[in-house]
């Protein structure tokens, strides 16, 4: 039953599913630290996935495509920033409006540019280059098909940890999240910090979007993100907005998606397996609270016993 080839295939698929989620949940985490509620990650990813494919089609350059994707995503992030940081509009509504608008806009533009509304792919499109591994064997199978942008996600998580917890900028940023008044009295320009955070989160979501449209497959489908931005919000919740916690949560959700994709080939129907990541999110949120409550109870009991 247990087969090492099967296992390494699942690991590689988990890593590939995890990377875009990780970028997004890091984006959610830093936004939460800076007290900006960012739910437009879905729209940012979609913008990036679309514009990278457009530029890819017209220039056939991976680098320009990558750049265009990130730029598109950052532009969306700036629009979000204008509305929620400057104009103090409701972040939930603006975020959702951006998300639905981007579905419409990308579909509209897809029809204008490529004359189709469903799926666009073309033989001349170039995918992100896969990283060649210097070793072979099972480990190589596990890392098969990963591009450098995939590795970047894990590096970004480490980088986020260093910046947030080991650098002055990070301390200031976290101070905003803990107490905006205190941060302001220290002279931290809160709005600039929030804008900068949004820009970084836009860049992170941009990388995620590029991975979706140019990673393991090179194409653009209507609604390509399919709720990953929302799952990333849940991952941020579970990981308590800590870069390493978020990494663990994203790996978990990545694993759920990978399992969902694998079970598609079995007798389970597609609609059931497609629900797995979403159901897992709900269950994880429930179990998280149950465990936290149990831990709290144990702590109280321990304190009482020690007396």
């Amino acid at each position, binding site marked *: 039953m247990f087969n090492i080839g099967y296992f390494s295939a699942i690991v590689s698929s988990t890593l590939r599913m995890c990377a875009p989620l990780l970028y997004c949940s890091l984006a959610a985490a830093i936004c939460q630290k800076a007290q900006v509620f960012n739910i437009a990650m879905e729209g940012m990813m979609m913008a990036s996935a679309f514009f990278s494919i457009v530029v890819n089609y017209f220039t056939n350059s991976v680098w320009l495509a990558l750049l265009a994707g990130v730029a598109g995503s950052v532009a969306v992030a700036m629009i979000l920033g204008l509305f929620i940081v400057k104009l103090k*509009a409701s972040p*939930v509504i603006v975020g*959702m*409006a*951006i998300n639905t608008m981007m579905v*419409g*806009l990308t579909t*509209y533009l897809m029809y204008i540019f490529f004359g189709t509304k469903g799926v666009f792919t073309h033989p001349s499109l170039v995918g992100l280059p896969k990283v060649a591994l210097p070793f072979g064997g099972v480990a190589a199978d596990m890392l098969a098909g990963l591009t450098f942008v995939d590795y970047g996600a894990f590096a970004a998580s480490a980088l986020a940890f260093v910046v947030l917890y080991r650098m002055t900028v990070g301390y200031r940023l976290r101070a905003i999240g803990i107490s905006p008044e205190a941060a302001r009295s220290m002279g931290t320009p809160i709005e600039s910090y929030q804008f900068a955070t949004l820009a970084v989160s836009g860049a992170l979501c941009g990388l995620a979007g590029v991975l979706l449209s140019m990673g393991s497959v090179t194409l653009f489908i209507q609604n390509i993100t399919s709720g990953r931005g929302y799952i990333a*919000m849940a991952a941020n919740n579970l990981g308590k907005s800590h870069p390493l916690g978020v990494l663990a949560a994203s790996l978990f959700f990545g694993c759920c998606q990978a399992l969902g994709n694998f079970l598609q080939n079995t007798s389970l129907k597609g609609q059931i397996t497609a629900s797995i990541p979403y159901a897992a999110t*709900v269950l994880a949120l429930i179990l998280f609270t149950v465990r936290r409550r149990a831990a709290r109870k144990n702590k109280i009991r321990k304190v009482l016993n020690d007396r």
Partner: protein
Amino acid sequence: MRRNSELSIRLRRLLGALKFPLISVAVGLLVGGAIIAFSGHNGWEGVKGLLVGGFGSMHAVTTTLNRATPIIFAGLSSALAWGSGYASMGISGQMILGALTSSVVAVACPGPAPLVAAVSLIAGMAAGMLYALLAAWISARFEASLLIITLMLNYIADNSASYLTTYTFRDPTAADRLAVQTQKITGAILPRLFSKYTVHWGFVLAVVFVLIMLFITRRTSFGYRARMSGLNPRFAEYGGVDSLKTMYLMMLLSGAMAGLGGAAEALGTRFRYVDKMITSPGYAWSGITASLMSSNHPLGVLLSSIFLAGLTTGGASIELTMNTPSEITSIIQGVLTMLVTAKFAVGWFRRRRSQRKGVSRDV
């Protein structure tokens, strides 16, 4: 004399309330025109086509009213939840289950047609309520974000409905073998208002519920409590409002409206459940937009829903005549929504301007 001034105050207040939605609509249409122009067509003709296509003839108006029916229900559902301060995104999932349940019941249940229709509408409503209750329970019991839970439950509802329609309730007699849909409802339907046009009794039902909502929110203490807990939850709690109870109640009512909206769409327009019939037209999001545009006022929900439905009808019409994708509608709707929520923006600009002038004024 006194009466006259009272009237003018009311009129001014009405104009004040309409100002931001109207500005947003104008800017939204402007952006829409610009995008149509960008795609190589005449932007002015495009916007004109949108409006004429949505409202220009008896056929257009009735089609728009037909399309507005589920949006009004979704808008009421959203006004109930958001107006009392609960960020529920679950309307889509509740509508899906309402539509599926009612179309299954309408086919399976024996009896005289009007009675069966009523029973299936209630069944759809109950399905929406139960699903909303599930979301509210998970969120309250496990301190999970209602927003995330409802979003996830939407995907689960959509996939489950798709599964059930494909494997359990699929119409075996369908001419198109690929069509994922349940059996056609023959008797127990919501009949058309005029035999020539698609608008059906579901629209009348929606208007009735708008009036009921108007009465509840403005004339009963329950509505007052709910509105207060939306405006200021801590004050409401201090004033003796049980916030947990209010949340369950509002979510139940919101689910009821959503479920009924799905059921009305199934019984009045499609006469069956068709896979993705709720999600692909984006009824739930249009409803949320409608309730935002009108600050959750029931009559405003009615008008904005009809307007948004008109844009959709117009979008479909210019797709045919001008070959511009109908997605233009969702772009305009997005712009509109963002501008409506940013109404504080105007206050911000005004404050800044007065600061520059050196005048301090509370806006």
